[in-house]
């Protein structure tokens, strides 16, 4: 295993690619430096996996040169574009907003907890190789196939053939950049998503609360043993959590600051969530509903609202359609799938069951939800804290952000309740422990964020970093 600094360097290209995209897309002053890095990492990894996908569908082998040279050239082009705009005075320049100040009091304790947890996440990801069931069985295996074959020629006979490809492609890219297949290197992706999530969540909370409360929000989030564990293992669920939550928080930041970079980043993250797991397609719909709620409240003219709606939908839905159209036509809906590809969730053949057992199934699914939320060691007592917070909330004093986040939470619960009660996937919740916790994980951070926003005392002045 190579030294830690050289492993860190492996992750520099996504930052370079993502930052070039960020600067080119931004017409206003960029967010604080760490927020830029967090956004750049998400955008950069998305750019890499999407580019590899395009190479794959064009039957171009994804060697190191074919992947990275065009991306570096593209980045140089984008940086040049940004510099030209600065020279023409059409851009405020690449200066960064001021960062929050020194820690004091309880913030020190919270920060220490966050730092120690983060060190633990990085240590586990950099020292424990791929070990988990799904990794061996599907996405790490698929990544290995992509690494060796450098093509999509065998995609239809690979396990979970109709699943989105962001993680297998990123893991294949990591090994390509490393020079050989390495069961440890491919796991180093996930702690960076963890760090990026914390930064984006902090940036959001600091706009509405103070430093101690924002750090407390992070503490509440990472106090979930299940979330922390998933940040250390090579599963796709944590990546989906990152893209999903970031898309929602960035939408809210756009709504407050009207900075176009937040809208476009949210759109790309929303699209990337659909390119990470199949559920991401449903989350994209939820993001569009949230955007519609924001726009319906806005005082802007209809033309502006339509432009914003399209600015979000075109990239997000474009990414979604790119993968699904390709899969639909390349595999053929009615074609018989090889055995290893048949075990997956097939969204082209969801069966809705409206038989008389519906009420009983609803009861069982709700029971499983309640058990998972309150009587497992997945989430600490965050859901109880949220329940208390919601009970004490006053409708008049409820901010728009709280209402929107609560709406998002309701939508996520509804989509899963409906999905598990009405379809054949009832089995996975009623008879196994395999999926429910991971489904809840994808939107869990909304709960601690809501707890902080609702309980933050109104008489303390929130910090505004800009």
């Amino acid at each position, binding site marked *: 295993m190579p030294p830690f600094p050289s492993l860190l360097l492996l992750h520099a290209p996504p930052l370079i690619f993502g930052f070039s995209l960020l600067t080119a897309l931004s017409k206003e002053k960029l967010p604080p430096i760490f927020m830029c890095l967090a956004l750049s990492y998400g955008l950069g990894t998305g750019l890499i996996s999407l580019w590899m996908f395009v190479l794959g569908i064009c039957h171009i082998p994804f060697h190191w040169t074919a992947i990275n040279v065009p991306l570096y050239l593209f980045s140089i082009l984008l940086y040049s574009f940004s510099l030209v705009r600065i020279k023409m005075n059409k851009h405020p320049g690449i200066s960064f907003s001021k960062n929050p100040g020194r820690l004091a009091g309880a913030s020190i304790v919270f920060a220490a907890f966050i730092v120690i947890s983060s060190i633990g996440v990085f240590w586990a990801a950099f020292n424990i190789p791929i070990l988990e069931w*799904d990794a061996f*069985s599907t996405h790490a295996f698929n990544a290995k196939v992509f690494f060796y074959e450098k093509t999509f020629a065998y995609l239809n006979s690979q396990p979970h053939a109709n699943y989105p490809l962001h993680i297998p492609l990123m893991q294949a890219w990591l090994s390509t950049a490393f020079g050989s297949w390495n069961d440890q290197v491919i796991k180093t992706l996930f702690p960076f998503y963890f760090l990026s999530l914390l930064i984006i969540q902090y940036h959001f909370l600091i706009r509405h609360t103070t430093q101690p409360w924002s750090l407390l929000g992070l503490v*509440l989030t990472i*106090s979930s*043993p299940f979330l922390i564990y998933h940040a250390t293992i090579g599963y796709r669920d944590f990546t989906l959590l990152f893209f999903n939550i970031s898309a929602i928080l960035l939408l809210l930041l756009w709504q407050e600051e009207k900075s176009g970079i937040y809208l476009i980043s949210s759109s790309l993250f929303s699209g990337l969530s659909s390119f990470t797991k199949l559920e991401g397609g449903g989350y994209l719909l939820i993001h569009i509903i949230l955007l519609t709620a924001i726009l319906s409240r806005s005082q802007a003219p209809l033309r502006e609202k339509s432009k914003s709606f399209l600015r979000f939908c075109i990239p997000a839905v474009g990414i979604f359609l790119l993968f699904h159209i390709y899969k639909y036509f390349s595999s053929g809906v009615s074609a018989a799938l090889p055995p*290893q590809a048949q075990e997956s969730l097939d969204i082209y053949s969801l069966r809705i069951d409206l038989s008389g057992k519906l009420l009983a199934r609803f009861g069982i699914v709700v029971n499983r939800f309640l058990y998972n939320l*309150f009587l497992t*060691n997945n989430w600490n007592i965050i859901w109880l804290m949220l329940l208390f917070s919601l009970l004490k909330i006053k409708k008049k004093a409820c901010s728009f952000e709280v209402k929107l986040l609560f709406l998002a939470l309701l939508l996520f619960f509804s989509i899963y309740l409906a999905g598990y009660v009405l379809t054949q996937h009832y089995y996975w919740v009623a008879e196994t*422990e395999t999926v429910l916790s991971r489904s809840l994980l994808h939107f869990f951070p909304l709960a601690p964020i809501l707890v902080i926003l609702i309980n933050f005392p109104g008489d303390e002045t929130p910090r505004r970093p800009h």
Partner: protein
Amino acid sequence: MATINRHLKTPQTIAFFAVAFSSVIVFSGLCHMLGIPGEDFFLSLRELSFPQNQNICLSPLLFGVNIYRLFYAISFLACILLYLASRILKNKQRDFSSAVFSSLFIVFALITAITAKSRIIDSWNLAKILSGKTTEEKYTMFYNTRNIYSLAQYYKSHLSERQKVQLVTDLDLSKDPGMIAQRMLAYFLYPIDVRGIRQEPPTALIFFAKHNALASVPEGFQILAVRDEENLIAIRKKE
């Protein structure tokens, strides 16, 4: 004195005492109900482990009781005490809410401390075991059942890099442990194709956990290497 009195009446201080008192009541109540000495109870509480799993982190049981039920009992009792305290002290609604949130935060901190302690100890022990080990050694340590990793390295050393092989085994591949064993083997072996990815005819057979493997080699194949009586490699005879 006035300062101390003022601090004692803050919502946070009252919450702290409410949680402490509730904890004593709940834990001593449980000990009394189950007939367990207090020492044994606290020893068990200290030795609780919190297993982590990619599908669910189950809550440990303390003498058959889900530990989270105890935390909720403490929280509920603390809320009742805080309500009574707010009536006696004639506190504002806002102070009562603040006290309840503080009490929940204290219970949250307690759970976080207990689970974090368990995690730190497990991670520290694991770090000591893994220190200085190569990836190969780590896999051999983690997956010693059937020596899957070392078996895969053995098979790889006798087969060409892109060979298409068929797995012959007595394990039930439709469920664990057979299913995961096959998948792990396939992962470690690739680009030697065990899972039919390249859809070519197999040129070799891998016998894995196959009883009396030597006698099971079919016509048209010859033995290439024998690891032990259940694990060997056979290749197609040249015509």
